[in-house]
C-alpha cells in the first residue's frame, strides 16, 4: 500500500463532432494517505470517471501530475487495482480463475495463486461459487468477485468507480458493509467514486465533493468503525454529515 498525490490535475477532451474542447476536470489537487479510504462524490457528468480513469492510467491527463508512492503514473499498471461499475469480469474464466488472474500475470504458480484466490473468495463468502462462470452469478456476487479480484493482486491503491451502482438497493447495503469490513481487515488505500452521498459518508474516512470538474470541499468523516446500516441509519452525526455533503453537491 502506498499513498497517492494528485497535483493540479486537469483534463480537456476534444470533441471531434463539435470541433470544440471540453474541460472535464479543472485543477484538482488531492492527497490520499496510505491506508486511507477516500470517497469522491458528485452528480453525474461532474468528471468523476475522468479523474479515476486518469489515475488508473486508462486515459492521459492534459495537466498536472499524479504520483503513486512518489512515482508518476504512466499508463495502467498492477499497482493500481480497479473495480468497474460494469464488473468487467472475464466471462470465459471461472470465478476462481478471475480472482487468480492478477497473480497469474505476476507469474505465481498455479497451486499458489489458486490458494490466494480461495482465501479472497472466502472473504466474501463465495467459496461455493469458485468453479462457476460469471454469467451464472447474480450482480451482487459478480461485484464481490470484482472487488476481490482487484484485492488479490495486492495493489498499492484500489480505485472503484461507482462499483455498487448497478445492483439492487438491499444488495448494495450488504456490499457496502462488506467493503468496510474488508477495508478494516486489509487496510488498502482506496479511492471510491459515487454519486450517492449516503454511500460516500458511510464508507469514507474523507469525502470530497466535486462539481463541474472542481473540488468544492473536503469533509472528514469521524464516524466510528465498524460501520453498519443498522447503527448508522438513525445516527445523528451520520445524518448531519450526509446533510452537509448533500447541500454542497446540490448547491453547486
Amino acid at each position, binding site marked *: 500500500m502506498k499513498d497517492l498525490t494528485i497535483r493540479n490535475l486537469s483534463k480537456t477532451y476534444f470533441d471531434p463532432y463539435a470541433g470544440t474542447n471540453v474541460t472535464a476536470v479543472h485543477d484538482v489537487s488531492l492527497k490520499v494517505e496510505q491506508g486511507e479510504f477516500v470517497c469522491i462524490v458528485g452528480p453525474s457528468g461532474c468528471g468523476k470517471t475522468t479523474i479515476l480513469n486518469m489515475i488508473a492510467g486508462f486515459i492521459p491527463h492534459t495537466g498536472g501530475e499524479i504520483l503513486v508512492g512518489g512515482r508518476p503514473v504512466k499508463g*495502467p499498471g498492477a499497482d493500481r487495482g480497479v473495480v468497474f461499475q460494469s464488473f*468487467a469480469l*472475464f466471462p470465459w474464466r471461472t470465478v476462481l480463475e478471475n480472482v487468480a488472474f492478477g497473480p497469474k500475470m505476476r507469474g505465481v504458480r498455479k497451486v499458489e495463486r489458486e490458494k490466494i484466490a480461495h482465501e479472497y473468495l472466502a472473504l466474501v463468502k463465495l467459496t461455493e461459487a469458485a468453479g462457476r462462470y460469471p454469467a451464472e452469478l447474480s450482480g451482487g456476487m459478480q461485484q464481490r468477485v470484482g472487488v476481490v479480484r482487484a484485492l488479490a493482486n495486492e495493489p498499492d491503491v484500489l480505485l472503484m468507480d461507482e462499483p455498487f451502482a448497478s445492483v439492487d438497493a438491499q444488495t448494495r447495503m450488504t456490499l457496502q458493509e462488506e467493503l468496510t469490513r474488508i477495508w478494516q481487515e486489509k487496510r488498502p488505500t482506496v479511492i471510491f467514486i459515487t454519486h450517492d452521498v449516503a454511500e460516500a459518508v458511510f464508507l469514507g474516512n474523507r469525502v470530497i465533493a466535486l462539481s463541474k470538474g472542481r473540488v468544492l470541499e473536503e469533509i472528514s468523516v469521524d464516524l466510528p468503525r465498524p460501520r453498519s446500516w443498522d447503527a448508522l441509519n438513525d445516527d445523528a452525526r451520520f445524518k448531519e454529515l450526509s446533510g452537509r455533503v448533500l447541500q454542497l453537491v446540490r448547491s453547486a
Partner: protein
Amino acid sequence: MKQFLLKFWGHCVRLTARWPSIGSIAPFIPVIAAWWIVTELQIFPRVFLPGPMEVVRSFGSLVYTGILPAYLQDSIVRLAVGTFWGIALGIPLGILLGLSQRARTALWPLLLFFQAIGDIAWLPILVIWFGYGLTTITVVIVYTVIFPVVLNTVLGVRSTPITLHRAAQSLGASRIRILWEVVLPGALPNIVTGLRNGLSYGWRALIATEIIVGTSGIGFLMFDARRSGSVVEILLGMIILGILWYIVDSWILAPIERATGQRWGLVTR
C-alpha cells in the same frame, strides 16, 4: 381418429425427448415417405426419379467397390486442408484488422475488392496457374473460408468491451497476454460463427470445384454420373452432401459454440 393422432403425437414427443438423436432424424421421415410414394406411383419415369431403395442399393455397391469411400475421403481431406489454411490465415488477419485502425484503413478496401470477386470466379486463372490438382481446389476453399472468418473475427475483436482490456491491464497483463487472455476468447464466439459460415460456403465451393476441375470426390462422382446418365448416383451424391454437412455442423461446430459463447453467457441460447 383425432384421439389416436394426438396420442401418437404425444408418444413421438416423449420418444424424441428421451433420445434426441431420433429428434434430428424424425423430420426426414415424411420427406423420404413422400419420395417413396411418388416413385411408387410412377408419376415420373423411373430413370428420371429413382426411389429410395435404389439409392440405398447404389450406395451399397459404391461402398463395396471402394469408389465411394475413396471419393469421400478425397472431398473431406480437401475441405479440411482448405479450412485449416483459411483459419490459420484468417484469424490472425482478423485480429490485426480488429486491433489496428491503421491496418483497417490500409487493408479494408483490398479485402472488400477480393471478396467481391468470388471463389469460383478464380477457377479459370487458377487452372492455368496450378492445373487440375489439389492446389487449385485448396486455393478456392481457402479463398471461400477466409472472408467470413476474417470479417467475423474483426467484429468479435471490436465488440469486446474496452473495460475487459482495462481490467486485464490493471491486473498487470502485458500486451501479449491480453491478446491471449482477452482478445482471442472475446472474439471466439464470432470466430466460430465465421467458421460456420465459411465452412458452409467452402463446402459448396468444394463441390462446384470438383464438378469443374475434379478427378475424384463427391462433386466429381455426381458429374461423372450425369455423363453416364445415372440419376441414382446423382441423388446419392446430393444426399451424402446433406448428411455430411449435417454431421460437421451438429457434431463439430455446434458443440464448440455450446462450450464457448453459450457457456460464458456471451451468446443467448
